[in-house]
């Protein structure tokens, strides 16, 4: 076994030192009837590296990789070019194979990186403080809701109808067990988000209002108005962002007054990966909320010789100290994805991020104009960043499947996201990034024309 260094001679010598006559002696506390006498039946035995690689490659080839097709999917996961440097760095053994930095003297690499990451996220979100990452955007969203409950001591949660339905479902699921009351809604197929309807649902019992920005249909809501309404009722505003590149072009939620900003960081540095691991981002606008935040925090301090150093801090909020009184049960986070995000963001810098965002938006505008010319298709959005909603005469879900058979990955149908809603079935989310060649836009337009004619 290539991963197991002990030889049989070693094992013998070690048993002798221990004073056991066989390995089985070490399992003596396991009731005999529970001990298996040999390898579990029906499962294959060990395999060479080559055999495993070949098997996994065969499986991988059964998937259509985004690079191998015109590709327009978004809806919470975005395809961007990730510089080769990012992967090089996250494969450094010192980052890849380190543990959570509980021993700061020999973990300054991870800790300084996390401090830089927190600072980058806080600035991107227009917030005071960000944590060291969460599992993903959807769980970060739930954690924000739970935090709002702790801060406001209220139980009513107002979800925008244009919140990603999977995020809403995670919130609803968790709320079942915490007796929060969830006020949710469906998105309406209008060019501009229904702020008035949302504001009307906020009341004095509301702990928080959750608004996606840009929203699930790609529209860019004016957060400031909702913030004002929420604050007027004593509720917190939670802004959810699933495309961080957008924040190179549009105002930061924190700038607009959002109290908690959470999101999915996958678009920067992490890649698609069929949905995971992703990177939950979590920040608060007001530093006084820090002690109610979930997740790990890295802070600056000094060592015994006065040198600057970094440590995990405020861990009295965490489960390993607080046990049942912790702010969250989160333990592992997305450290390596945070590194990938931070390296990519460092390469971009503000200048690169703004250029990247402008480029995405410009290409998306081109795509919207072109697709609007397809008969039977209209572009819903009055505003968008790099993703917009087409409304199609027909069942968009069927069209997406049909185009996939022809090797075109046309986008995400609203039917996939809201299978029960007849009214939404003509909706098709189309995302366009710098990785989308202009000729692929033409291919999509032609394919849609063909499918709709």
């Amino acid at each position, binding site marked *: *076994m290539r*991963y*197991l*260094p*002990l030889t049989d001679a070693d094992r013998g*010598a070690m048993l002798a030192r221990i*004073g056991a006559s066989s390995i089985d002696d070490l399992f003596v506390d396991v009731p005999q009837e*529970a001990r298996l006498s040999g*390898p*579990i039946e029906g*499962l294959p035995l*060990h395999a060479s590296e080559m*055999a495993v690689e070949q098997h996994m490659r*065969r499986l*991988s*080839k059964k998937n259509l990789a985004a*690079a191998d097709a015109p590709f327009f999917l978004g809806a919470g996961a975005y395809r961007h070019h990730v510089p080769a*440097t990012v992967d090089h760095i*996250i494969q*450094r053994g010192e980052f890849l*194979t*380190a*543990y959570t930095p509980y*021993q700061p*003297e*020999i*973990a300054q690499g991870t800790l300084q990186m996390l*401090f*830089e990451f927190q600072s980058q996220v806080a600035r991107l979100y227009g917030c005071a403080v960000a944590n060291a990452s969460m*599992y993903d955007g*959807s769980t970060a969203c739930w954690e924000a809701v739970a935090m709002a409950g702790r801060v406001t001591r209220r139980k009513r949660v107002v979800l925008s109808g244009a919140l*990603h339905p999977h*995020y809403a*479902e*995670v919130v609803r*699921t*968790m709320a079942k067990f915490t007796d929060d009351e969830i006020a949710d809604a469906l998105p309406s197929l209008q060019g501009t988000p229904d702020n008035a309807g949302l504001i009307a649902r906020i009341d004095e019992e509301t702990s928080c209002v959750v608004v996606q920005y840009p929203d699930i249909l790609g529209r*860019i809501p*004016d957060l400031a108005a909702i913030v004002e309404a929420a604050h007027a009722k004593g509720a917190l505003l939670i802004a959810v962002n699933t495309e961080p590149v957008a924040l190179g072009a549009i*105002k930061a939620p924190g700038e607009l007054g959002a109290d908690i900003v959470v999101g999915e960081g996958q678009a920067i540095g992490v890649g*698609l990966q*069929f949905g*995971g*691991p*992703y990177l939950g981002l979590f920040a608060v606008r007001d530093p006084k909320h820090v002690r109610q935040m979930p997740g790990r925090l890295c*802070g600056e301090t000094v*060592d015994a010789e006065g040198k600057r150093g970094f440590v995990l801090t405020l861990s009295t909020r965490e489960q390993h100290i607080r046990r049942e009184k*912790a702010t*969250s049960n989160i*333990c*592992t986070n997305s*450290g390596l994805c945070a590194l990938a995000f931070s390296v990519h*963001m*460092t*390469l971009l*810098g503000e*200048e690169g*991020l703004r250029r990247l965002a402008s480029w995405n938006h410009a290409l998306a505008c081109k795509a919207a104009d072109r697709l609007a010319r397809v008969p039977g298709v209209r572009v819903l959005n009055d505003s968008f960043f790099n993703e917009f909603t087409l409304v199609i005469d027909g069942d968009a879900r069927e069209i997406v499947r049909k185009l*996939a058979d022809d090797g075109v990955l046309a986008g995400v149908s609203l039917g996939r996201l809201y*299978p029960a809603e007849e009214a939404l079935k003509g909706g098709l989310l189309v995302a366009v990034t710098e990785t989308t060649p202009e000729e692929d836009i033409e291919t999509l337009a032609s394919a849609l024309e063909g499918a709709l004619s």
Partner: protein
Amino acid sequence: LEEPLIFELAGTDTTGVDLPEIEGGPNRLGGMERTAPIGLPGLSEPETVRHYTRLSRQNYAIDLGLFPLGSCTMKHNPRLNEKIARMPGFADVHPLQPVSTVRGALEVINELAFWLIDLTGMHGVAMSPKAGAHGELCGILCIRAALEARGDPREVILVPESAHGTNPATAAFAGYRVENIPANADGRVDLEALKARLGPDVAAVMITNPNTCGLFERDMKAISDAVHAAGGFVYCDGANFNAIVGKIRPGDLGVDAMHINLHKTFSTPHGGGGPGSGPVVLSEALSPYGPLPFTARTADGVVHLVEEENAAEFDHTQAFGRMTAFHGQMGMFTRALAYILSHGADGLRQVAEDAVLNANYILRSVEDLLEAPFGKSGPCMHEALFSDAGFSEGLSTLDLAKSLVDEGYHPMTMYFPLVVHGAMLVEPTETESKAGLDQFIAALRSVAERARAGDVSMKQAPYYAPRRRLDETLAARKPVLAWSDPDSA
């Protein structure tokens, strides 16, 4: 040379990418253009590579040496698995692609699920939880859903004293009252105390087995039977599954739910704090309540993705909901499956045996110098527990741990489990060689001797690390959690 922060290395007008500059003109951003400065520094590629390479060298890692963190299971991460996770068919696939274009991805999930079920002797598995704690929550939510489905909501979850901190946090989160169960003198759950506490208000017992004292719970089956007889469920914390994988099936011991840390037992890299992955295996009684989405293979061999829409087709209408946006940690699934296929049923068995052998070897090689509180309770499993009894006055577990840093090692887990004073939990894992263990044992003996002898220089250790002891109190008292420009202050 000290490495500055990125904010100290560059301004916001430089960049390490070459992107076109799009001239202004009309946009469709709805009037929300970001105009104020953001404050993100940009470094050229050479500066970026150097910054992170230098930072990395201030870390300790498995690739550099033994990482004996008890209960954290720091074992070697095979490089094959990294290569596989990066195959474009896995890495460059969107979670919402039409199912016809992701058959291979679904097969990976299903194949891994099959192994996890078989290795644990359970009935089903929820693959989507994102980490161990998330998996725990999933398991407890399954239990709550099952109890509610039978109209028997209960209020209490019993947790042994020695549990991981996540256990009570999870139970509390799910709305339960947590009660502790004491341990007996030999470090195991007190069966009689447990039985005495069982009753119609007890929803579940959460047990870690092997437990956090590194011992196998001999009475596991009796515990399960008693809990079941009282109408409750048995949750097993699977963080220590690596000690028994391939040797013992938790399902045979009456477990109803157990999360599996793929990043521990199946060696996906810890990455400085994640990502992990925490699938939860479920008994027949709990399987109907497992969350969406998941995969199912039909008789024709096709693997289906089961979501809200088609749950009824797969007779899974009682799912308690959805724990995360997409399908779980695909990147961890590919790595874990590669690990499992590499070892096979025989190799995994060997993993458990070697992990236990290595831990006992350490236990018996230092117990004359380091007090092993349960050394007489039988062999340990994959980790060896020591206490600070015998240290000279004024020296602590922390001092010993930091002195170990100067010997070139990462310290063991300290002050956990809480049931032992000054606890030190040492888990070598199966991927250490005998020569490596002997070297570590020599170092451990050396610091233990110094602790017994009262070497006060240990109080200032480490001396040879990138940093001396860091002031954690200052960090917490005056938190500085983000960089701010001193020039603008």
